[in-house]
């Protein structure tokens, strides 16, 4: 030991003496019994002594399992929601009004779709036939606005796409059918249509929509199904139809439940299947 160390040793002698004089603390008399008991029980340290790490280890596996389960559930829900959303564009396509109707009943269809997204959803939901279908596809009602916002800059081309085939469609539809009963009605169509359409019964409107449903939908195919904009723009004229002069009638239809509207559509379907043979001549 060096001189310096020896000197330090001497300096600290009183402190060392004090520490040495401290009484020895002993384990309690039942120490070994408690130890044996703990060993038999599995030798776990009490929470106070084991600290957070031990406690956390106990929770790690269940927490991980629950997290994984939650992620799986969310994934499943998202997966099914996606497929349900993908189905919805079919519904607006089916109930889209004929071009002639739109010209007569909805005088300015281009102005309304450009309104705010939240406003545009409301009339869509209010329209009975559409609302009836949409009621079943709840999550899809919220999805389109986002997509609409994304596809907003492309609105003009899509509208053109929509309008153009509809105008093309209008020509074959408007000419009178070979059947005399239909012909009588169709003869006056170009002039009488604007006046006659607003007074049409809601059931007639449904029938017209069903016609659209049966008609080959070249124009609708041009509108991408995944586009929320397409959904919105197609749906809006429905709202306009039901806000036409027959407010009471349309309100009645609007108030009817989804099931009623579906039933109406189904009942109208056999009647409007008749015009089908006209097509091959077009």
């Amino acid at each position: 030991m060096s001189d310096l160390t020896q000197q330090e040793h001497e300096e600290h002698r009183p402190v060392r003496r004090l520490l040495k004089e401290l009484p020895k603390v002993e384990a309690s008399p039942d120490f070994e019994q408690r130890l044996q008991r703990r060993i038999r029980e599995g030798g776990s340290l009490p929470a106070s002594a084991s600290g957070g790490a031990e406690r956390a280890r106990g929770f790690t596996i269940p927490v991980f399992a629950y997290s994984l389960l939650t992620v799986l559930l969310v994934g499943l829900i998202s997966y099914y929601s996606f497929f349900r959303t993908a189905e919805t564009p079919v519904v607006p396509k089916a109930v889209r009004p004929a071009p002639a109707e739109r010209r007569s009943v909805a005088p300015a269809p281009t102005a309304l779709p450009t309104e705010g997204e939240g406003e545009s959803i409301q009339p869509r939901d209010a329209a009975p036939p559409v609302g009836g279908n949409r009621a079943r596809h709840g999550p899809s009602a919220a999805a389109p606005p986002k997509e609409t916002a994304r596809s907003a800059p492309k609105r003009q081309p899509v509208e053109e796409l929509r309008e153009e085939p509809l105008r093309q469609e209008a020509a074959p539809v408007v000419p009178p059918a070979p059947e005399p009963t239909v012909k009588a009605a169709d003869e006056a169509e170009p002039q009488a249509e604007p006046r006659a359409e607003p007074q049409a019964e809601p059931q007639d409107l449904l029938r017209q929509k069903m016609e659209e449903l049966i008609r080959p939908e070249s124009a609708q195919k041009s509108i991408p199904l995944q586009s929320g904009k397409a959904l919105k723009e197609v749906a809006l004229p429905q709202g306009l139809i039901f806000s036409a002069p027959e407010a009471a009638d349309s309100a009645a239809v609007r108030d009817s439940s989804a099931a009623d509207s579906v039933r109406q559509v189904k009942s109208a379907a056999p009647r409007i299947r008749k015009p089908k043979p006209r097509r091959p001549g077009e």
Partner: protein
Amino acid sequence: MADPTLRQSDEELIAAYQAGDTAAFNLLVGRYKHPLMNFVYRYLGDYDQADDIVQETFIRLYQKAGSYRPVAKFSTWIYTIATNLAKTQLRNRARRGVFSLNRTRGEEGEREREIRDERYPADRLAERTMQQEIIQRALAALPEQYREAVILSDIQELSYEEICAITGMNMGTLKSRLNRGRSQLQVLLKDLVHE
């Protein structure tokens, strides 16, 4: 005639326990429970926590005796386990930022325990108890690494080599820490030292 087990070294006992002799384990517990209790108590300053730590040390010995290799002394090995557990406990306590209620209870327990110390006459017991409390508080006030070195050297009276093996310090670091620790204690205990 002396019991042959009393003459067995720690290393022989642990070897016997590794071979399946549970009586050897009990002998080791009997040999080390008081020294370990004294060390851990002085290190933590809480009797109940010290008791838990020493029990856990023996549980580790019971469960992991197979990991002991005779290259090191058994005393070094068991002190290393106890030191590590005590350090973990100290850090957990610091993280919680509060002292447990046991601490107060432990101090009271300590007082009762030390009152039974019969080395001093009854009239000096109160003074002696107070002195021990002051020393314990001074130890608790030392930085962790100084405290560890001072307790192992001056209270447990282990050799420098053993302390180096337990703490993993080299000799120079140990001497330096011992010197600083004792100097700090001298300042903290100046009233007791000059008596």
